[in-house]
């Protein structure tokens, strides 16, 4: 149930943004992409102000004004300089990316444990479920929002604004300054978008530089859904349709996730859906009068209160039926929803558990997610179903455990690090026998690098009453920490949990959250570089300031470079497309060595960097050991397989009955050195014997 309530709440918060998109798209007749930037602008300013101690309501007003400023900039570029509206929006949106980074000073600000507008709401909670209480309060707020918007469109200014969009020639003939009013409309719309961004940041507990991407499409989809649902021509119906459209769109996303749809396809589905409705609505507008009369008659019929009630009732019943089926299904086939997010672990991965005595339980050595079915479940699920669902187990001979515990493993995005961690995590649970002992089911939830999906997934995990939650990566930790206040939660693959806002010190952390902190061994890498290259003077360093992890690494790198007598020559990038250029620039300044450290943008462009550097015979060092297989000279970093194991061990302590509040956050950096000897030979570099002796792996060719 929380899933649906959560979707309604998100829908209400996004409705403010949708109203902004409605104003530009339908009132000003202008497709405004500024929205993607002003949403983040509102969120970042709100977050910065709240952290600085400003009242969260005042922060929202500030968010309105920064959004409005962005919109007015687009409006002026469009009207004064006659630049195409779409292009004007793209210009301002792109510029806002930098401005938002300036505002935040980093890519991500946590609002956990900060006062928000919602803490006030929760303060007056008479004791009902917080999400439901929130839904009630938001409904009241939405009623107010509905009235304000409807009244605004009926004022002289509102009418003039609508005239300007519908017929600019007539507007000018009637003395309306079309340029000014269009600019004002776009400004006003983006102000609302900014407020929505601020609300979402407060609701989800953080602002992130990437949170606005795709906002305009979400808004358009919601507007179009609303229009299809409530096709009335009256002003009030139109305003209502915007709010309803936003809520329904969120419900549709929640339903798609709930029904097991692959979130990978969500964006495509949204785009196809918007396109289809646009084409259909155009077709309807073109059809002769008669067809339209029939459509209007149907619309009138649908709008009758009894019919609306009926539709709502049928929908609710249908949802409950699906829900019921879902539950049943889940109990029939354990792990049916393992693949939620279409991200089953690499099934081809070879068993990695050492054939040692630890393997007492004789269970499967497969690294795949597995569960030990109870006798009943085993009897009911067919071999085919098991295979299809990726369940692998060979423990039929083992007696069924008394309990059955469900764990949600939540990851935000993909990388080689994630794969290694997950493998280590699963292997450890197998090795220790936790799967058997606790009748463990581990379900993978994958957000596909999408904030709104992540939020829905956390709602779903809470609604599904999982026994434990494990998050991999800082982003996953932040979303989960905000959405889940009850389920015991273990995190891993987090550089700095203190910065993420879940803890002040290893022992002073949120009572239901604990985990593993793994910093990049930047200093070790630079120290080794000094040992191997005693006469080297400078290190090239390319990184993306928008990445939180990379930012802390850059601070470490500067410090260590100074300590070991290197000059650090930095090149900053905002996307993979700029990496090659930035690397060339750094090389042109005559560097001896090159380092990238925990930067996802650079990691993604690693082959290109390695190619450029090998042409100049400049040794390339990274903070990921396995990179030596991809043309890197030396990798000094944490072994994420072991990080995964360590995360699993912490989960096992919780399984054994310990409370998260009693377990301090553990700093764990299993340092490994990998050396590419083949490349060293090619460059004519002699690596000291003591370094080779410490290396875990030496690539010979």
């Amino acid at each position, binding site marked *: 149930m929380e899933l649906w309530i959560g979707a309604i709440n998100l829908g209400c918060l996004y409705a403010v943004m949708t109203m902004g998109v409605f104003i530009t798209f339908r009132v000003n007749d202008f497709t405004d992409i500024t929205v993607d930037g002003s949403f983040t602008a509102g969120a970042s300013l709100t977050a910065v102000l709240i952290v600085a101690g400003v009242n969260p309501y005042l922060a929202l007003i500030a968010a309105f004004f920064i959004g409005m400023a962005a919109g007015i900039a687009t409006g002026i570029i469009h009207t004064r300089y006659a630049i195409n509206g779409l292009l004007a929006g793209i210009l301002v949106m792109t510029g806002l990316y930098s401005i938002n980074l300036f505002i935040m000073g980093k890519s991500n600000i946590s609002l956990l444990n900060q006062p928000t507008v919602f803490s006030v709401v929760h303060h007056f909670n008479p004791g009902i479920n917080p999400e439901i209480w929130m839904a009630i309060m938001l409904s009241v707020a939405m009623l107010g929002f509905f009235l304000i918007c409807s009244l605004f469109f009926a004022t002289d200014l509102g*009418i003039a604004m609508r005239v300007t969009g519908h017929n600019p*020639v007539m507007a*000018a*003939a*009637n003395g309306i300054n079309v340029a000014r009013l269009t600019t004002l409309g776009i400004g006003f719309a983006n102000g609302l978008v900014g407020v929505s961004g601020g609300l979402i940041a407060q609701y989800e507990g953080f602002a992130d530089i990437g949170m606005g991407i795709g906002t305009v499409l979400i808004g358009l989809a919601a507007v179009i859904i609303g229009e299809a649902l409530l096709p009335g021509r009256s002003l009030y119906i139109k305003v209502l349709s915007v709010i309803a459209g936003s809520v329904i769109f969120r419900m549709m996303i929640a339903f798609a996730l709930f029904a097991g749809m692959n979130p990978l396809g969500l964006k495509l589905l949204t785009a196809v859906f918007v396109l289809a409705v646009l084409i259909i609505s155009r077709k309807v507008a073109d059809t002769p009068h008669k067809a339209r009369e029939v459509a209007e008659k149907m619309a009138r019929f649908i709008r009758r209160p009894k019919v609306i009630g009926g539709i709502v009732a049928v929908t609710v019943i249908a949802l409950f039926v699906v829900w019921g089926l879902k539950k049943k299904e889940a109990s029939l086939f354990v792990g049916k929803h393992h693949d939620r997010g279409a991200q089953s672990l690499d099934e081809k991965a070879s068993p990695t558990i050492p054939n040692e005595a630890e393997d007492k339980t004789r269970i499967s050595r497969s690294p795949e997610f597995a569960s030990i079915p109870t006798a009943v479940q085993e009897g009911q699920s067919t071999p085919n179903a098991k295979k299809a669902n990726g369940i692998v187990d060979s423990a039929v001979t083992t007696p069924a455990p008394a309990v059955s515990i469900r764990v949600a493993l939540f990851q935000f995005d993909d990388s080689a690090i994630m794969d290694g961690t997950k493998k280590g995590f699963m292997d450890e649970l197998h090795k220790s026998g936790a799967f058997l002992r606790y009748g463990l089911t581990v379900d993978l939830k994958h957000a596909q690098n999408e904030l709104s999906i992540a939020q829905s997934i956390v709602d779903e995990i809470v609604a599904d009453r999982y026994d434990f939650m494990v998050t991999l990566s800082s982003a996953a930790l932040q979303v989960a920490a905000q959405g889940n206040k009850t389920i015991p939660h273990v995190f891993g693959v987090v550089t700095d949990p203190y910065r993420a806002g879940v803890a002040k010190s290893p022992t002073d952390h949120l009572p239901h959250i604990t985990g593993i902190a793994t910093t990049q061994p930047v200093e070790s890498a630079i120290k080794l570089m000094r040992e191997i290259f005693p006469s080297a003077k400078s290190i090239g360093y390319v990184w993306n300031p928008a990445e939180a992890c990379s930012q802390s690494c850059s601070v470490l790198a500067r410090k260590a470079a100074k300590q070991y007598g290197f000059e650090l020559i930095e090149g900053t990038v905002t996307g993979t497309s700029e990496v090659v250029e930035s690397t060339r620039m750094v090389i042109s300044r005559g560097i001896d060595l090159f380092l990238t450290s925990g930067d996802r943008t650079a990691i993604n462009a690693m082959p290109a960097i390695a190619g450029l550097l090998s042409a100049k015979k400049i040794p390339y060092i990274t903070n990921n050991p396995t990179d030596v297989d991809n043309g890197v000279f030396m990798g000094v970093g944490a072994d994420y397989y072991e990080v995964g194991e360590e995360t699993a061990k912490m989960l096992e302590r919780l399984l054994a009955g310990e409370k998260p509040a009693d377990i301090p956050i553990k700093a764990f950096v299993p340092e490994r050195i990998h050396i590419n000897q083949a490349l060293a030979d090619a460059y004519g570099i002699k690596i000291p014997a003591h370094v080779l002796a410490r290396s875990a792996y030496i690539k010979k060719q």
Partner: protein
Amino acid sequence: MLTVADVHKKFNPGTFNEVYALRGISMTMAQGEFVTVIGTNGSGKSTLLNAIAGTFLPDSGTIAIAGKDVTRKKDFERAESIARVFQNPFTGTAPQMTIAENLHMARLRGKRHYPRIGLSTKARRFYGGEVRELEMQLEERLDNLIGTLSGGQRQALTLLMAVINQPQVLLLDEHTAALDPKSAVHVIKLTRRFIEQGKLTCLMITHSMQQALDLGDRTIMMHKGTIIDDIPAKEKRAMTVGDMLEKFAELRKTEQLTDDMLAQLRREYA
């Protein structure tokens, strides 16, 4: 009331598509005068109207309304004193808004649009009374969208919107050309009544020689961006359509009109 002095306008100057649309137009209109304009296609009739309305700024020359120089003012700034009705009935109204809202915008012509509810019950009653004068049974349909009305109804409403605030100058650009004959007759009837009642200063382009003769105090004839004839009221009263075509033929002798042009005029006006 309206003074146009030596106005020139070239479109797309210096390009292959250069059009010298107005070549030194000068004319004056007294307070309450009603002038009709006729001329061949491309003679600059509509361009003259647009220059007066401020759709574009002239290259040289001045335009003054009631003694005030408005040459450099934009269209929406002139709208306070100038109202206009377009040839296309779709241009003058906002189709996705109601009759009352459209009238309200016209009523606020030249005033600031504040975020206050100006379209009150009282205002609606006033608009209802105004709409009744159109004799089109629209007074009961104030909340209908303009898009549901016929072309004739829309054009009548645009006319009402143009005169609702008693403009200093009313510009009519072949405003009955796109209507069916019955609606055209009705709209002309309304035009005549509104102008007489309000003693409005009006410049009207027409495509019908009969209209040009029947309506207005004097008639201006345009050709190739200049005014080639200005027929005063006295002379006009005695004229028939035949006389007027003959006048064209006479002008031909002074070589201002080619044979083609004359043929075109006969086709269009007779």
